[in-house]
């Protein structure tokens, strides 16, 4: 039921310099978000995520570049005239109004009759799975219920774009996970374009069609789908920020068609060289904990390291083993619990291996060798 067909959002070379500050909050942002897409901006706190939402919603106009919604330049058009609706970080529900009045507020501003507003409120409460609370005061609702009311209030004005500013951060873990699925469903059911911002990578990975990873300096490091980001990080920052990763200091020795051999404190390691680093350059070798396994025989093509087992942490389905390879970096290895309970003993020596194609050599701003 494509009730409110979403629209494309084009963010073109956008930069924002706040009055009185020395450096821009964001710069050089280029994203084309497709109609109906669930797009997340993921980045550490203070990297400019809220700034981007305020630019799209019209509370700010960019100092550089432009923003198009549905192909139309939005410069100078205020928040009350844009086809966007914002879900605020603290929800900003109106405490003096009932749930129905909150949801009907946008329609009231457009001159809709009371009957129309009540009908819409009923429908939307149905959509967000919270029927029958029309006449309650918002302060009498639980955190998760308030969340749903805020979403219903945003959807009531039939926006093309829903902008969500870390809306789940105040909820407890279980509710948060439930709301993730819920939000995703509402996005697909309504066809509204969702722009979601979060510093929680788990949230971004599970919900989004695509994710834009931002660095602290207000730039975008990579835009990709969740699995692509996880498996093919383009910069050291993305590899480090998204998911857990072993980060090993490395210096490039030799390079050969897409691969490189690097020197580490564990000895020589072979891996992929997607950034085409040249010999002598400093970088990091990134290896996911789950691609490391106890070495079997005949694994010549893999990197093999002899380590001492420092710690074993049992997590049910998985086991994380902390390894000391004699160098300055500690390695983490994560294996599936197959039920055999055959884990290496603490302080025992084992050989672990990881494939060359699972080892990525990456450099990037802020990733020099200190």
């Amino acid at each position: 039921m494509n009730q409110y067909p979403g629209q494309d959002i084009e963010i073109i070379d956008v930069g924002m310099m706040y009055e009185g500050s020395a450096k821009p909050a964001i710069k050089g942002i280029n994203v084309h978000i497709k109609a109906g897409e669930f797009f997340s901006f993921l980045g550490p706190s203070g990297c400019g995520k809220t700034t981007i939402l305020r630019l799209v919603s019209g509370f700010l106009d960019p100092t550089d570049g432009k923003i198009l919604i549905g192909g139309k330049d939005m410069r100078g058009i205020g928040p009350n005239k844009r086809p966007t609706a914002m879900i605020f970080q603290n929800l900003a529900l109106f405490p003096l109004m009932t749930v129905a009045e909150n949801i009907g507020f946008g329609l009231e501003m457009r001159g809709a009759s009371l009957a129309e507003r009540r009908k819409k409120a009923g429908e939307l409460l149905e959509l967000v799975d919270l029927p029958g609370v029309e006449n309650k005061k918002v302060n009498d609702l639980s955190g998760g219920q308030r969340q749903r009311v805020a979403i219903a209030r945003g959807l009531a004005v039939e926006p093309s774009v829903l902008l969500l500013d870390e809306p789940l951060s105040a909820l407890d873990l279980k509710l948060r996970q439930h709301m993730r699925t819920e939000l995703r469903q509402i996005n697909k059911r309504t066809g509204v374009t969702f722009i979601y911002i979060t510093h929680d990578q788990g949230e971004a990975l599970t919900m989004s069609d695509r994710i834009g990873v931002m660095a602290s300096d207000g730039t975008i490091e990579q835009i990709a789908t969740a699995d692509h980001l996880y498996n093919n990080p383009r910069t050291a920052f993305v590899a480090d920020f998204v998911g857990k990763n072993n980060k090993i200091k490395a210096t490039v020795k030799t390079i050969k068609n897409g691969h490189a051999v690097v020197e580490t404190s564990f000895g020589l390691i072979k891996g992929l060289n997607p950034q085409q680093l040249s010999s002598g350059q400093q970088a990091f070798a990134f290896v996911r904990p789950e691609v490391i396994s106890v070495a079997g025989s005949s694994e010549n093509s893999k990197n093999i390291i002899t380590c001492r087992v420092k710690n074993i942490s049992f997590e049910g389905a998985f086991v994380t083993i902390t390894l000391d390879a004699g160098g300055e970096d500690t390695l983490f290895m994560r294996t599936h619990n197959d039920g055999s309970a055959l884990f290496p003993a603490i302080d025992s020596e084992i050989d672990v291996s990881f494939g060359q194609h699972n080892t990525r050599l990456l450099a990037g701003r802020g990733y020099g060798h200190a």
Partner: protein
Amino acid sequence: MHKLIPNLSKNFGIAGSLIITGSIAFWLFGMIILPQLIMIDFSFRPFLPLNKIGGPDDIYTLKNYIVLFTNEFHRAIFIKTIWSSVLVTITALIVCYPIAFYLAKVARGTRFSLILIGLVIPYWINELLRIFAWQLILADTGVLNQLLLAMNVASDPINFRAGNGAVLLGMVYAYILFMVFPLYNAMESLDRNQIDAAHDLGASRFQIHKRIVIPHCKPGIAVGCIMTFMLAAGSIAAPQLLGSPSSFWFSQIIYTNFECANWNQGAAYAMVLTVLCLAFIFAMLKIFKVNLKEIAK
């Protein structure tokens, strides 16, 4: 309340707590309740020569109150005082609302401090002197008239003090802070995101104030209006200094009565003024649908 004395004696000892509760009781009874009771007693007794006080003619009567209805001049002044005080209150509200909003939600840093200082500094000098300043501005040979004459806007000095205008102006100026601060206080506590959310949902500036800011500020508006009205209705300096004979104020009648030693009449009128103010308080609470507890916040 019932725990007050045990708590006090724990902290200050028996003697200390007796001194504290004793002085509070003295203040409450001796300084507030007793004078009021004496005034009420006075107001129900006839105005008699000294030698007849305590004699057979000294009986309780409503005479002093009835005068307000029979004396046409007094009645007119009373009604005018009410209505002018309402006018002062409304004007102050209209003037102070944007100032308070700007202070609470727009201004930052030095601009905020400058406005605040600008508002507060005049209150460092006495109310009487502040109103004197307006007299200097509005007088026939005052600053404003000289300016108008010099610019050839007026050919003769304008008598600004002829009607009620100067008195009302002086009062609005004198009581601005008592309106600004309750409003500012209320607006300060409004979450900025609520304004943004309303704007984002399509509300115009006017609609934001009507649906979000004003409902939130009701207790502040009620407090500001009550303070301004009470100060205006009881004001004596502004009508005395800025008024003309035609702009007599009810408080001036009370003052004159006390001056002529007719304390009984003065006390009755003072009671009427007190009751009027109480009525105004309850009317405001009713209109803004707030209760005393919200206001005490």
